[in-house]
């Protein structure tokens, strides 16, 4: 049972503030992913929880007890890094057993703990080998084994699979997730890879320039991004963002982008929902799959012209020219035959987002 909580955490490196007033509560058994670009403060946050960095203000609580003054070794937290940092002269067995040697655990007990971990990580037949004889994936398995063997309160991982090639990364990602489900330890995982975050996390914590942007389940973060940064950081191809003007139409609302002659048709309730917001300038956000394209004219669809088509195999990404703005739509493979083709497009109101251009915040409008 391990809960971790950060309260008003601030951290400076010289004059640079790398963590700004961070508040976060992590539940027992939860898999939390800290996601952000390099330099956003995610690794510093992780290291602060582990006790490898001090903090300048705030509290770090483990199971309700402040630990910010405790040494790393007294926090009972295990950490796995991108570089495996195994002892090269010791066998895999000894590497995994090492953290237990310093404890009062008996030989027999250590042996069964090491062999159990070996079984879980499927490295039982590697126990007698030296690390230099292992592949990258196996080395990382050993590093994880060494972290887990002493049953720490929490497992912290800093881009543990970032150095592996694409195929191995996928395999290891699946293993880490499966291991977590089986072992159920509170886990904090740092990455810059949004697919990794979306696939592993119970909740994702997105950071940018030391500031927490949003905490939410993968679905929340993808479907209801809190601001423009999150909207454009999560999802590929990136969400379309366009300055928008909303006007009243006879039985609907109209959202114009790129100075186009006509606007996208929205339900009238959009006007009422926008009324509550003082945003001076609006941006429409719509993911490529939220733009619906057809070949012939239909009610609510506006004429657009296809530009670049990117065939990606199972689907295509088509650039649509709307006024002076380019919007990218996701279509069935081969749906649009060529550049210059005239098409008709609609924005699915349910998948549309509205942002205040000045603050970047989502207006939280759900249609």
């Amino acid at each position: 049972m391990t809960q971790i909580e950060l309260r008003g955490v601030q951290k400076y490196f010289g004059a640079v503030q790398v963590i700004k007033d961070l508040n976060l509560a992590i539940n027992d058994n939860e898999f939390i992913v800290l996601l952000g670009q390099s330099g956003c403060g995610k690794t510093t946050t992780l290291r602060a929880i582990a006790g490898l960095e001090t903090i300048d203000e705030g509290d770090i609580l483990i199971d309700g007890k402040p630990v910010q003054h405790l040494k790393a070794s007294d926090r009972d937290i295990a950490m796995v890094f991108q570089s495996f940092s195994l002892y090269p002269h010791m066998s895999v067995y000894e590497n995994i057993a090492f953290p237990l040697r310093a404890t009062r655990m008996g030989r027999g007990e250590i042996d069964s703990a090491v062999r159990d971990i070996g079984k879980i990580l499927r490295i039982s037949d590697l126990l007698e080998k030296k690390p230099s004889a292992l592949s990258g994936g196996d080395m990382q398995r050993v590093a994880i084994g060494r972290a887990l063997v002493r049953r720490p309160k929490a497992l912290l991982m800093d881009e543990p699979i970032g150095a592996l090639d694409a195929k191995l990364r996928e395999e290891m990602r699946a293993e880490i997730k499966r291991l977590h489900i089986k072992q159920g330890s509170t886990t904090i995982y740092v990455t810059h890879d949004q697919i990794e975050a979306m696939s592993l996390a119970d909740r994702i914590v997105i950071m940018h320039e030391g500031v927490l942007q949003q905490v939410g389940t993968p679905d929340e973060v993808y479907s209801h991004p809190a601001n423009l940064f999150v909207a454009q950081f999560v999802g590929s191809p990136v969400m379309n963002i366009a300055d928008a003007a909303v006007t009243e139409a006879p039985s609907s609302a109209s959202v114009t982008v790129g100075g186009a002659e006509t606007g996208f048709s929205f339900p009238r309730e959009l006007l009422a929902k926008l009324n509550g917001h003082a945003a001076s300038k609006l941006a429409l956000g719509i993911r490529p799959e939220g733009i619906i394209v057809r070949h012939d004219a239909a009610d609510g669809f506006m004429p657009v012209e296809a530009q670049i088509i990117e065939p990606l195999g199972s689907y295509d990404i088509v650039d649509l020219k709307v006024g002076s703005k380019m919007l990218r739509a996701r279509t069935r493979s081969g749906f649009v035959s060529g550049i210059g083709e005239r098409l008709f497009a609609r924005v699915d109101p349910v998948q549309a987002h509205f942002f205040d251009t000045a603050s970047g915040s989502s207006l939280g409008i759900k249609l």
Partner: protein
Amino acid sequence: MAHIQLKKVSKTFGNHTALIDLDLDIADGEFFVLLGETGAGKTTTLRLIAGLEKPSEGQVFIDGVDVANWGAAERDVALVLQQYSLYPRYTVRENLEFPLKPKIRRLPDAEIKDRVDRAARTLRIEHLLDRKTDKLSGGEMQRVSIGRAIVRKPRVFLMDEPLSALDAKLREALRTELKNLQMQLGATFLFVTHDQIEAMSMGDKVGVLNHGRIVQTGTPHEIYNNPRDTYVASFVGSPPMNLIDGKLVNGRAVMAPLNFELPFSGGAKAFGGLKAGAATDGRALVFGIRPEDVYLESGAPVEARVHDVENHGVEKILTLRVGDAMLRATVPARTDVAIEQPVRFAWNPDKVVLFDKGSGVNLRHAS
């Protein structure tokens, strides 16, 4: 602009054979992508065309003329590399002007200015012209290197992994920009990459290179839907095509050793279908099916367990476990599945591609 042909080109470096019997035909104004893994011979091909290497055998033609005795300068090609190699102490403008100011054949000043301004406009770097190049971001630097190639108005653009050093978001943006640029210029582009998404999304034609041989040349659509062999099938597409060993028994696909059966309707209809008599009952085959053509359904014929879930927001890629084998299935984002949950799946029999087990060749391609 230029039409490029390679005829029976081989290249050896000492004992190492880099290219074997390479035939390549790049039409004037075409965006041709050479796709292959590290060491496949991509860069060697590019350097042969640039005149930086001489073929051990065979000929290189530019616009029908054998260029064996032409030096690199005479071939009038522009090379853009992953490394930007700009002059750090020069401004962007000076970097762009540089190729136009050789001691001999120096262009008139007005012409230089005109070309630089036009290139800057095309690449949207006008606002950077007076900045020193060491003050630029990676994406901006790569735009300037491309600009330096454009101003010369070369006959051919040769690009060696120009996007590989950039981060994912920027790569995505520059992909479209480069394709756009090529169309605006109407120039012949030979683009070398190991990234199948770049190849698919940008290429008019893609040539897949494996161990110094061209395995298949075709449009992205052909390569994706009608791969010549299991190598191309598993290299192109993310996730790759599922490949399962089995044979045909009484019109059903029987997997062995996996021991499950699926209906078979004669295989993919596109590209002319199978040649008559090509697939005989009992022949050892590999069945190929793309993840988007595998679907979950409660009454479907085969049971599997969910091994992993990769969440892309717009869709989920499931890894299904059948016996010891893993299969990928792309399912809508709303599909609610948990790891280790039992599911049932089927495939779209019209999309199945058959490969000969021994040679790995697609039966539609086999003569």
